């Protein structure tokens, strides 16, 4: 489990570092989101600063990787899931700090050298470019086909009912739902071009953008099919990790390909671009706390401050505020659930004819009349799969499924190899498996429940 967490962390750290280093490349008159002309971007001071930035990014990667090894050490390892999320957040924050610091350094060099560019208040638009917008994109048939193929796991589950125990049919709809966002991305990208004055440039850029969006949708499809196959057939933590690695590598590769193609276009058309496209124009200050904020801009999705790093939300728009709030709330809930689930202990209380198990989000009560048998054993039943529950480093609880046992409710401390197994009438759940923080506590729990059920 810890090894899986560390592999996930290293992948995340690597993606963060690669993104930071990528943003230091000159693209669309920018380096690290700071506007510079091509000539100024090759200035000695700028190049030295960027070398130092590269070193800082690598240092952050190294330190993060070293910190991740703390997961092997007690008592950190008993809260590994929560610490993993904290380390991810910390890495994200430190990367942001490094970028912010170096943005200030670049800005300072600009001011020292008096490199002032006029603000771009004049928008030049060629009517031919506007009229042909979206016409050079590749067909949307592909993304719709990928969406249909995403339903393949759902179709398999419809015919193989036994698989639904380990892979609920509702869960299989998450893939198509995520794929819908790629369909939306395609329609956003197919008419997208940074150049509004050169029709040939704009057409080629639209084609590249639409191909990138289609490839991203294909990567999502491959991820979902691999993920579903690993859930249905492999049921192994590392096998489930493989599709995630494939998806991340594919998305990163697609972004690299897209940006290298657009950079190539910029170089190819460098001589043909009119004066207003050649010159760097300073951005208006439209960034608040790292977000784009412009109530006067009707666009909801805008390019990120660092050119070529994708899109962000305009929080100046009411819909942008809503999405931002939704994402923040989602993150807070995920972190909250992980922290609460990892820290709250189970409380098993026997009162009258009922036993109540109090656990975060997965409470349950069973009656004496439902109990068929109470046994104690030193290992868990074989081939266990989490259906809907919490599977952390120190605890596992919620709905699980075991070979030969079927649907079970689990409330266990993972490091205690003794379990009380309560067999219930019916099969939803058929068993309740629980233990205490120590073997002695588990033994006491067994005596308590078995004497209660035999009275």
């Amino acid at each position, binding site marked *: 489990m810890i090894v899986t967490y560390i592999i996930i962390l290293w992948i995340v750290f690597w993606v963060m570092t690669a993104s930071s280093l990528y943003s230091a490349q000159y693209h669309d008159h920018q380096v690290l989101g700071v506007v510079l002309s091509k000539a100024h971007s090759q200035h000695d001071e700028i190049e030295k600063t960027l070398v130092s930035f590269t070193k800082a990014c690598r240092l952050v990667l190294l330190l993060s990787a070293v910190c991740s090894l703390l997961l092997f050490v007690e008592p950190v390892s008993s809260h590994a899931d929560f610490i993993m999320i904290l380390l991810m957040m910390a890495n994200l924050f430190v990367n942001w700090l490094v970028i912010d610091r170096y943005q200030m350094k670049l800005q300072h060099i600009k001011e020292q050298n008096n490199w002032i560019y006029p603000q771009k208040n*004049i928008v030049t638009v060629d009517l*031919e470019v*506007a009229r042909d917008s979206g016409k050079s994109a590749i067909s949307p048939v592909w993304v719709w086909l990928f969406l249909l193929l995403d339903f393949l796991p759902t179709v398999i589950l419809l015919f193989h009912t036994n698989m639904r125990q380990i892979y609920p049919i509702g869960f299989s709809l998450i893939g198509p739902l995520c794929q819908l966002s790629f369909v939306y991305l395609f329609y956003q990208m197919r*008419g997208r071009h940074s150049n509004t004055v050169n029709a040939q440039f704009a057409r080629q850029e639209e084609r590249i953008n639409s191909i990138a969006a289609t490839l991203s949708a294909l990567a999502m499809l491959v991820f979902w099919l691999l993920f579903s196959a690993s859930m249905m057939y492999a049921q192994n933590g590392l096998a489930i990790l493989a599709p995630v690695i494939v998806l991340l590598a594919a998305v990163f590769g697609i972004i690299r390909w897209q940006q290298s193609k657009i950079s190539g276009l910029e170089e190819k058309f460098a001589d043909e671009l009119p004066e207003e496209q050649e010159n760097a124009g300073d951005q208006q200050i439209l960034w608040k706390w790292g977000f784009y904020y412009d109530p006067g801009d009707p666009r909801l999705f805008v390019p990120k401050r660092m050119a070529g790093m994708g899109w962000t939300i305009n929080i100046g728009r009411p819909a942008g505020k809503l999405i931002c709030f939704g994402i923040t709330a989602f993150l807070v809930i995920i972190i909250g659930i992980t922290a609460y689930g990892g820290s709250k202990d189970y409380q098993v209380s026997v009162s009258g004819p009922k036993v109540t198990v109090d656990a975060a989000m997965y409470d349950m009560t069973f009656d004496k009349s439902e109990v068929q048998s109470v046994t104690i054993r030193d290992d868990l039943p074989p081939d266990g799969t989490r259906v809907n529950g919490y599977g952390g480093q120190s605890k596992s609880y919620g709905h699980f499924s075991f070979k030969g046992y079927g649907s079970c409710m689990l409330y266990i401390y993972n490091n205690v190899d003794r379990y009380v197994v309560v067999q219930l009438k019916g099969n939803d759940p058929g068993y309740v498996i629980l233990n205490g923080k120590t073997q002695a506590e588990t033994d006491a729990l067994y005596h308590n429940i078995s004497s209660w059920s035999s009275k």
Partner: protein
Amino acid sequence: MRLKIDMSGNIPIYQQIRNQIVFGIATGQMRAGDKLPTVRQLADEIGVNPMTVSKAYGMLKDEGVILMDRRHGAQVNRLQPKENALDMDFDHTAMLLISEAYTKGVSQQELERHILLLINKIYGHKEVLP
């Protein structure tokens, strides 16, 4: 034809779009039958609300400069002489410009020569309308 929109200028954006399309047609950059982008396409390119472009197209349509059609979208109309083209509004706008030149001390001969130069820029190489 290229539109240059000053986003921080005093002239409203819809007015700038309208003026530049009229100017583009008069200088031969756009001809009768040429298609214009849809309202949404042009609004996306400039980065303004579609209502702004719609207002500009609405003005051009009312003036008979463009035709709006559900199937073909917006396109430049054939130039048709209007009986009352040189109406009071025209006189008022032209008089204001001449008055401004006068208050700046421009002589009559200088103004006539300059206006003739501008007229030739528009009418210089064009066929006479029927």
